[in-house]
């Protein structure tokens, strides 16, 4: 993969993450913000794997795996919190 293609791919993903951040700031209700965070974490996992490929670092895959695991547990915790209506 050439340098240009990598930069274009990473730029598109960065714009996507920025759109999610916009929704997270604007979202009228708390679940809206949670959905934005959910979408953002999935995008960041894909971004980490791609970054690992661009930098040729195998460690990034471990980071992506642990990040997706923690994001899943955290989102389920947020959902439980919203469900109780505290």
């Amino acid at each position: 993969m050439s340098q240009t293609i990598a930069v274009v791919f990473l730029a598109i993903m960065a714009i996507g993450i920025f759109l999610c951040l916009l929704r997270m700031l604007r979202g009228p209700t708390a679940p809206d913000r949670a959905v934005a965070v959910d979408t953002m974490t999935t995008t960041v996992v894909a971004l980490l794997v791609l970054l690992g490929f661009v930098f040729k670092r195998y460690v990034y895959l471990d980071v992506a795996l642990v990040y997706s695991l923690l994001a899943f547990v955290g989102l389920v915790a947020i959902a439980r919190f919203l469900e109780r209506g505290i």
Partner: protein
Amino acid sequence: MDVFGVAITGVGIIFLFLGNFGVLRLPDVYNRIQAGTKCTTLGAFLTIVGVGIMEPAWLWKALLIALFVLVTNPISSHAIARASRKSGVSLCDRSVVDKTKDFEEFREKT
């Protein structure tokens, strides 16, 4: 093989971007979950598998991450959707039918 991997990664990234765009654009929380779940699941899956194809030594671990995303993404979205229904987020104006009442009656009966 390299071109094939780049193509798969590119398609995945386009889907990821559309998912993020849908989260910003669609009118209410349930529609946003639709876009945010479907598009990002396939997008992340294709991106990670594409990287695995470009770097064959990473393929197994990449497949593991992709499968993990494929399994956990629907579950976390489902949890958020349930929470938003329980905390009383209403549907948008363009909705045509709402059968939640039937379901609640069914819950009372059992």
